[in-house]
């Protein structure tokens, strides 16, 4: 699937998630399935929660006990392949990287989109962060239905 369409299978996606009971606080999900020479997620993490090691081709491993869900890795990943997610009652709160115009604004309702580029529901924009150190990659916090936990990946106006 991934090799032919760019869309990972559900079982592959789930390998990157912790147990749902760990998601009461935000955790980083590194959707990095292929060994490429790259390690900014690991070197940018202030909590040493993401390990790649000497060989920068290795896949990142997240220590979910150390990860605070701060989101620094989200805008540091050159592949835009990391997001954070937390579960709050019936909602899932995601922090995603975003590099398209127009920028979303807080309290707007955008479309929730899956990895196939299809609309799967609504996404309420909670925060839009753009600091100089993010180097023009927006960090957008959105709220979607909890049942979209493994499907949601980005937003569309």
């Amino acid at each position, binding site marked *: 699937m*991934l*090799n*032919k*369409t*760019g*869309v*990972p299978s559900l079982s592959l996606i789930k390998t990157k998630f912790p147990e749902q009971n760990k998601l009461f606080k935000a955790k980083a999900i590194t*959707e*990095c*399935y*292929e*060994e*490429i*020479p*790259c*390690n*900014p997620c690991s*070197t*940018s993490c202030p909590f040493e929660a993401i390990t790649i090691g*000497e*060989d*920068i*081709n290795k896949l990142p491993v997240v220590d979910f006990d150390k990860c605070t869900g701060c989101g620094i890795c989200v805008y*540091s*990943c*050159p*592949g*835009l*392949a990391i997001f954070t997610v937390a579960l709050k009652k019936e909602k899932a709160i995601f922090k995603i990287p975003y*590099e*398209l*115009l127009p920028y979303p604004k807080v309290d707007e309702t955008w479309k929730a*989109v*899956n*990895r*196939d*580029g299809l609309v799967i529901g609504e996404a309420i924009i909670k925060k839009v962060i753009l600091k100089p150190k993010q*180097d*023009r*990659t927006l960090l957008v916090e959105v709220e979607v239905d909890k049942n979209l936990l493994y499907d949601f*990946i*980005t937003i*569309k106006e």
Partner: protein
Amino acid sequence: MIFKDLVIIGGGPAGLSAAKIAAEAGVSCLIIERDPFLGGQLIKQTHMFFGSEKQYAKTRGLDIAKILIDDCLKHQDLIEIMTSTTVVGLYKDKVITTLHDDTYNKIKAKSIIVSTGASERFFAFENNDLPGVYGAGAVQTLMNVYGVKPADKVIMVGSGNIGLIVSYQLHQAGVKVLKVIEAASNIGGYKVHASKIRRIGIPIETRKTIKRAIGKDKVEQVEIVSLDDDWNIVDNSSEIIDVDAVCISVGLIPQRNLLSMIDIKTKFIKELGGIVPIINEDHQTSDKDVYVCGDVSGVEEASSAIVEGYYTGLIAARNLGKEHQDFKTLNIDYKNQLLNLRSGPFGKKTLKGLEIMKEDANVK
């Protein structure tokens, strides 16, 4: 005639990096660049780069260009730069002739580093000469260097990293990318790039190719077809799509033309992108005073070109009698960086190509 210790032909990532290290070692160099700007292909790369911190990972390509250029400008006493200057002749006695504003010049060098990069590969299909058929790199130059929107509706042919990245950047610029087609059975580039464009609604379809472009004075439609596992066209698989541009991104060819003017030994090594100069570990060609680095000696990512540039600058300086004060440390560091960049699945091809090269590299 101008006399120079080291002349570097091509001011892209490899050439700039070579100049920086050679200048640090005390060698006076001249960078000759055909374009009006230094930085090579980096200046149009708006995405963040992979690699590690040493190769400026997570920095956008255009900002890496600024860093490398600034590094050279710090050595203004030693590094001279000529832009909009084309090398039109290279001679065995290390005389280089250049063209700038209709003026020819002659430069004599003790050593030469050729870092001319690579050019886009093209391929044959009906009407491929219609206006609207572009190389993906050309589209990127129009968009990101000159701010020109190249088309409204495009199809991307080829799913290597360039095809995937340019598709993403076209989408960012408000151009509709209908799909990316790939003749091979799997996506060629990094899957993170593929996932990034798939989620914004651009489908990637493997085992498909373009059969012809259709249009009177410019591209109006394309016919695409499916391929079977033996690369034959599948019957009744034809699909006609309305587009106003076709982007071709089917790979790069090392730009070794200048080297053939001085009979440098070359070899066809498909893993390195085609005909490449045969080099030894020190990046010396069959003429020991002519070095190469970057894509001209094998097509790879810019991160490798940067490290190769540093390494070649270091060696060329030493051979000119100016050993860098950190020679030993840097020598080992650059070799390790290159090995690290190439030790994943994507680096296998390069390593295999370099092994094949070694068989012929008794040119020291």
